[in-house]
Each structure stands twice: as structure tokens, then as C-alpha cells.
């Protein structure tokens, strides 16, 4: 039978763990709300840029802009978004496993990695992958300027010919209980065919080409911003769910330990009574 004092100590420990996990859950929930709000606010801008670009791209010459030109994809780059911190369930494990799989399929030697979030950087740099750029410690004060900095860094490396093809691997926020890992083709620019019809013929100023040239970097910035927001929301949602599970588990554990404690206490009392009674009986004889 376990020692009473030991059980009491364990209950105490688990009680404080439960408090921590509950606090983490609440913090994650608050951060998730903010992340969702950010996502909503980015939507109109992203939607319009995307709409106009989609409308324009089909009838322009792809060779007019280096970011549109398709080059034979010999050297590839992957942008991988993870979190800085753990305790968010299988959020990082899942994406790292899948990303590694994708990169291996593309050829480890021909691939360069850009890791956004510390977990990804730690994982891939230890395993001998070529990480050309990494970002960490910004998730808490996430700002649009982070997205522009990253987009610019990727674009200038791309234009310098360091790689011919850039894909982004990130967690897309489906709902609080669900994240989906997405592989997105970032560069060269390919747009889906869901081109929203803009019926009118616009007047372009200064010229159509100039407008497109100015639109492309805007588009890349807002896409990068979207990846950051999606990943951030997913991370907070994953943390919230896993911390909730942890809090519940701690509760269950405490319940079963209490039961064990009470049993042990009763057993101890029974033994003591038995000892007293048999002692008294011995005296009578």
C-alpha cells in the first residue's frame, strides 16, 4: 500500500500542474481570438489584390517580370512555418514530419530551407539540412512588417538565382479543432483559374505593366502575412486543445489518486483499530 504522505504530495504536484495548464489554455484562447481577428481583417485586402491580379495575369506575357517567369526548377527552396515554443500537441511534430518528407522527395542536396519559427530551425539544422534563413521570437508581436521583411528576403534570393522554385509548408487554420498542412507554390507566381470576372475594361495608370509590377510584391507580402496568421492561429488552437486535454487528464489523475489516498487512509485506520482492539484483548486475558 502506497505511503499516505507520498500520495498527498503527488496530488499537490498534479494540482499545480493543472493550474499551469489551465492558465496556458486561457492564454492560448485569448491569443487565438486575436489571431482570428487579424485573419478577418486581412481578408478584404488579400481578396482584392488576388482578384485583380488573377484578372490580369491570363493575358500578360510571363517573361515581362522575373517573378512570373518559369525557370526549370533545379534548386528548390522550402519555407517551413512552425512555432517557437512547444506544448502545443502534435502541431510541430506533424508539420516537421511532413516537411521532411517533402524535402527528401525533392532531394535534400538541391533544397534550401527557410525556417520561420524556432522549432523548425532546431529540427532541420541538427539534421544537416541547408537552412539559409531563419526567423524566431517574433510571434508575440506579430506585425505586417515581419511579413514584408520575409517576403523581401525570399524574393531577393530568388531573383539572385539561389533557387528557382519556392514552396511554403504551413498549417492552415480550419477550425479550432482542426489544422491542415498545406503546401503552397509561392514563386514563381502561379495563380489558380478561379479568376473572378471583372467585367469592365479598366484604364491603367501609368500602364498595365507598371500596375502589375507594383501588384506582384504587394501580393507576395500579403500572402506571406496570410501564412503567418494562419500558422499563428493554428498554433494557438493546437495549444488550446492540448492544454485543455492536459487539464482534464490532470483532473482525472487527481480523482483516482484521491480514491487511492482514501483507501490507504481507511486501511491504515482499520489496521490501527485492529491493533488497539487486539492489544486490549490481550490485556483482558
Amino acid at each position, binding site marked *: 500500500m502506497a505511503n499516505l504522505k507520498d500520495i498527498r504530495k503527488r496530488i499537490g504536484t498534479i494540482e499545480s500542474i493543472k493550474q499551469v495548464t489551465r492558465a496556458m489554455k486561457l492564454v492560448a484562447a485569448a491569443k487565438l481570438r486575436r489571431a482570428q481577428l*487579424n485573419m478577418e*481583417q*486581412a481578408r*478584404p*485586402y*488579400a481578396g*482584392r*489584390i488576388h482578384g*485583380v491580379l488573377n484578372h490580369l495575369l491570363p493575358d500578360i506575357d510571363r517573361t515581362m517580370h522575373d517573378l512570373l517567369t518559369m525557370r526549370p526548377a533545379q534548386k528548390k527552396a522550402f519555407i517551413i512555418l512552425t512555432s517557437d515554443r512547444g506544448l502545443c500537441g502534435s502541431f510541430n511534430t506533424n508539420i516537421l514530419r511532413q516537411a521532411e518528407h517533402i524535402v527528401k522527395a525533392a532531394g535534400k542536396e538541391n533544397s534550401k530551407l527557410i525556417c520561420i519559427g524556432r522549432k523548425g530551425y532546431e529540427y532541420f539544422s541538427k539534421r544537416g539540412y541547408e537552412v539559409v534563413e531563419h526567423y524566431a521570437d517574433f510571434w508575440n508581436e506579430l506585425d*505586417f512588417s515581419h*511579413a*514584408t521583411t520575409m517576403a*523581401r528576403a525570399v524574393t*531577393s534570393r530568388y531573383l539572385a538565382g539561389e533557387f528557382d522554385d519556392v514552396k511554403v509548408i504551413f498549417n492552415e487554420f480550419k477550425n479550432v479543432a482542426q489544422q491542415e498542412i498545406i503546401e503552397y507554390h509561392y514563386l514563381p507566381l502561379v495563380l489558380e483559374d478561379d479568376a473572378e470576372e471583372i467585367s*469592365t*475594361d*479598366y*484604364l*491603367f*495608370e*501609368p500602364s498595365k505593366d*507598371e*500596375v502589375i509590377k*507594383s*501588384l506582384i510584391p*504587394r501580393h507576395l*507580402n*500579403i500572402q506571406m*502575412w496570410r501564412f503567418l496568421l494562419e500558422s499563428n492561429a493554428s498554433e494557438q488552437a493546437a495549444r488550446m486543445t492540448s492544454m485543455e486535454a492536459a487539464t482534464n487528464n490532470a483532473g482525472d489523475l487527481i480523482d483516482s489518486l484521491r480514491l487511492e489516498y482514501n483507501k490507504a487512509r481507511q486501511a491504515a485506520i482499520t489496521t490501527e483499530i485492529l491493533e488497539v482492539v487486539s492489544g486490549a484483548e490481550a490485556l483482558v486475558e
Partner: protein
Amino acid sequence: MAAQFHLEIITPTKVYDEGDVDYVRAPGVDGAFGVLAGHTESIMALTIGEIKVVKGSVEKLYASTKGFAEITDKGVQLLVESAEPKGDIDLHRAQEAYDRAKEHLSRKQEEMEDQVRALRALERSMNRLKVAEKK
């Protein structure tokens, strides 16, 4: 009252819905241009500068960065990467950015790309300061 049109200033982090306005002036790549109701449908590239909105006798100024304007018969949407109403400009931050950019530019041996970046930052901060100090 003259005809009005609907104006929205849309940034990645916020939408400023101005409602129906009389006039807007935006910083086009080839110089500022003004829009009144009934303007030809067009898409125009915008550069760093100030957006002026006129609604009745009220004038409003924004400091904005690059983007573009979409003018349709339904109204005008200005899609810019950042826009701050005159009163919301963080002067302290703009001044800091200005000083930082100046310092970068004074160091000669830096790479071309950093120079360009510093120049852009300088442009943005100067624009903010300029708009904020307007009467």
C-alpha cells in the same frame, strides 16, 4: 450638393470605411491625382504619400505607403500596405525610423540592397512626419 461616391481605404490590418465622400486625392506613381464621382473605371498604382479625403466641409488626411487604387462605378477602393489617419501617426516611431534610416545611409560601405531598404524606410518615415505636421 455634388454627387458623392463610396470610399474605402483597405490595408492588410484594417479597413477604413469612409462612407460617401465628395473627393479623394491619392498619390499616384506619376503624381497625385484627384477623383470625383463619375470617374472612369481604372486601376492606378500608388506610391508613398498622402491621401486626402473631402466629405462636405470636412477634410481628412492619411499617410499611406505603396498600393493601388481601384475605381469602379460602385466606388473607390484604395488598397495600400499601410495607412494611418493624421491623428493616429506615431510621431515618436516615425522619428526613430527616420533617424535609423539616416544613420544607415551615412555608412557608405553597406551593400546596395541595404541602402535601397534604408532609402525606402527614410521615404516612409519622412512621409509620416510630413503628414503629421500638416495643419
